[in-house]
């Protein structure tokens, strides 16, 4: 399964919506994912891709990991996999 598909499934599960309703330009807020849900998503991403995500829940904007949209999350994972893989 490609990274994009897996991320969409993780996000959809958190948002409790069908994967078809998650799009690359969706933002966590637009899907109703709160701060705890976001942290849980990051955990699921780390477990799924066996990477360590530099996400700081205190100040998400200043993290070295852009979670502003599904597309940005996918791009971040690809970068981390390249660096850490």
């Amino acid at each position, binding site marked *: 399964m490609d990274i994009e598909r897996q991320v969409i499934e993780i996000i959809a599960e958190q948002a409790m919506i069908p994967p078809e309703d998650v799009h690359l330009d969706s933002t966590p807020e637009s899907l109703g994912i709160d701060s705890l849900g976001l942290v849980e998503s990051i*955990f699921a991403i780390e477990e799924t891709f066996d990477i*360590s995500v530099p996400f700081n829940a205190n100040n998400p904007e200043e993290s070295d990991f852009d979670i502003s949209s599904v597309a940005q999350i996918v791009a971040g994972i690809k970068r981390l996999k390249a660096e850490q893989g």
Partner: protein
Amino acid sequence: MHRVVITGAGTINALASNVPGTMQAMRDGVCGIGPLDFRDTDRLSIRIGGQVHGFTPENHFNRQQLSLYDRFTQFALVAAREAIVQSGLTFDDELAMRTGVILGTAGGGIGTSDDNYRAVYEEGKNRVHPFVVPRLMNSAAASHISMEWNLQGPSFTVSTACASSNHAMAQAFAFVRSGVSPVMITGGSESMLCFGGVKAWEGLRVMSRDACRPFSANRNGMVQGEGAGIFVFEEYEHAKARGADILCEVSGFSMTSDASDIVMPSRDGAVRAMRGALQNAGIDRSEVGYINAHGTGTAANDRTECAAVREIFGSHADALMISSTKSMHGHAIGATGAVELLACIMALRDGVVAPTIGHEQHDPECDLDVVPNEAREARVTVALSNAFAFGGMNAVLALRAV
């Protein structure tokens, strides 16, 4: 000073998943203790407990809730639903602002700690689920009850080992009596029946391998249980004005500290606690018809507790009944006083005194009417509920029929 009554009760424990079922089991002298069923019991030397079986969390909570709720929180929420629904209260406006939750627990989310220590130490994982802390914290159950029912008043958790829930309920009683809050949700919850939880207790060598037999000469130790008991404590006039069904009155409490030993009980501390509760409630000792004993089934506790009762009550000690329902549901540690309060309510409201089951041999050092093996019908107007914890922290509640 306000009068305080109980207008709702809820529970889940080894005997049943609600109050009517638990009271029926207590009437019938059912033993809820059996083989433990969880991971790695083959590495335990103690393999029995009062475990809650047949509880399916998915029937009560959604996936997101489950990711945040340790088993002890699940027990508390299920029991709170039963209690609050029975009370008929709805929490909005001023009542919501003033009502709070005070719970007791000894181990909190010990199952969460156990699972995650296993993951990082045994399995070598370097990452744990993000909700480990909000799951394991001792106050999690109180927090989730406050959130589920919109209770915005004073809420916290007390932890005094095996007396936790009695300390919690005594504190809630004091809040309602003094006018801090017209209603408080209180009780306790515990879920220590996991590998680490039982392994720790094994170390003390006070656990029975076969049964909990309080006051019986052949008793050989305590048996752990688990579960929750949650109650609605309400100011009497508030309850009366809305026509609530009153289960019984809470009339006084006492807390004492032995200040002597971290595990051995003290007769003097127990005497002062029971006597203090009677004084606090304005009850003459001759009125006491039933004592729900701490009655752990250890040699030391039962002997000491009986001596304390004898010292306080003198010849009236032969006229009252004292039983330990731990023989049926096990020692639910920080929740035990809350589960056992149900036996007091049953005695006061229904006139049925729960038995001490597993009683096989008379012990001259426990020479009281311990209601052996069979429940008894009796008119009881005043009951005491004892909790004497490790570390010598004692809390006794005095209750009266309404």
